[in-house]
């Protein structure tokens, strides 16, 4: 079994028994997609809500472009988008400032944009661990689609 690493502003796919892992999610959101029948997993680590220019080269950076990109990559290795379900983690607010600028609200805006992008493909969200103020490292199992979430302060949970 291999653990495939997904970087920041990056996407990756894996088939059972391999898994996908991304580290240090702060305001970024980890989008964990899984087709339980084909046992195909896909993971995106997005930084920003919406790509403003169509020429944007790195589609993995944005919620609205990473979702279709990831679905397409998963279908290439046997997934079917009608069976794909999603789990989300991240979107935290790492720092609290007196003035709540847009920069500070980026986490919740990312989560909102991911949900919109998923609903455009009628992909159901079965579980999420979003918001709060802690960093998260996540690992998506290709065997059963479980998502392991590790934080610095609150230990490990699985959703």
């Amino acid at each position, binding site marked *: 079994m291999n653990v495939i690493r997904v970087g920041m502003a990056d996407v990756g796919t894996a088939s059972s028994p391999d898994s996908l892992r991304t580290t240090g999610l702060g305001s970024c959101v980890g989008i964990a997609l899984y087709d339980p029948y084909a046992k195909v997993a896909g993971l995106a680590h997005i930084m*920003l809500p919406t790509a403003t220019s169509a020429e944007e080269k790195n589609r993995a*950076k944005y919620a609205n472009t990473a979702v279709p990109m990831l679905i397409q990559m998963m279908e290439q290795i046997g997934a079917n988008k009608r069976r794909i379900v999603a789990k989300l983690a991240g979107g935290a607010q*790492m720092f609290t400032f007196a003035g709540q600028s847009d920069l500070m609200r980026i986490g919740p805006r990312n989560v909102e944009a991911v949900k919109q992008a998923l609903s455009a493909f009628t992909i159901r969200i079965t579980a999420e661990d979003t918001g709060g103020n802690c960093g998260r490292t996540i690992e998506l199992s290709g065997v059963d689609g479980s998502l392991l979430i590790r934080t610095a302060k609150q230990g490990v949970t699985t959703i």
Partner: protein
Amino acid sequence: MMEDIRNLGEIQLSCLREVGNIGAGHAATSLSKLLQSEIHMNVPRVCVVGFDEIADVVGGAEQVVIGIFLRVEGELPSSIFFLLHQESAKRLVSGLVGSYGSGDQEEFTEMEISALQEIGNILAGSYLSSLADFTKKDMQPTPPAISVDMAGAILSIGLIQLGPVSDYALVVDTEFRQGDLEIHGHFFLLPDPGSVNLLFESLGVASV
């Protein structure tokens, strides 16, 4: 025109190193005064790194660190981080907080947190005021915010401004040490897109 920071030449790099040197020199002096002990600093390292590599210098994205974060407002908007490992942060403030410290416990006391914030404030304030003198640009730090968490999660907030235009960050990294107490800290300056060329212009260096 947005600069492409991957095209930085030797002249621009040494200009940024000098900027870091002057800023950090003043910051180290202020910190020495506050702690009444000698603070050493290394010649700043200027590098252009992929978003994924930015946390490597403090031990990787998952490494738990103390992160003090300030935004720089004014003519050269930037982000500033002061990053320390937990043990270093405890040692750094132990003299300031005395018995209000947490000793060997993992958690930080309120007193330690506010001492760290004040250190961040002083470091950033003196770094920026010397930078402002040097460039004749107006620069104001926001009050510092602090977080104890994974380095990747902390630093990512500094990449949000860069995200829409680049996959790389320009980092001016200065390492601090306090005498023989084994305190290591990193001071990161991350200029926003557009700030880099303005900085070069103000110093009479060709832009990128």
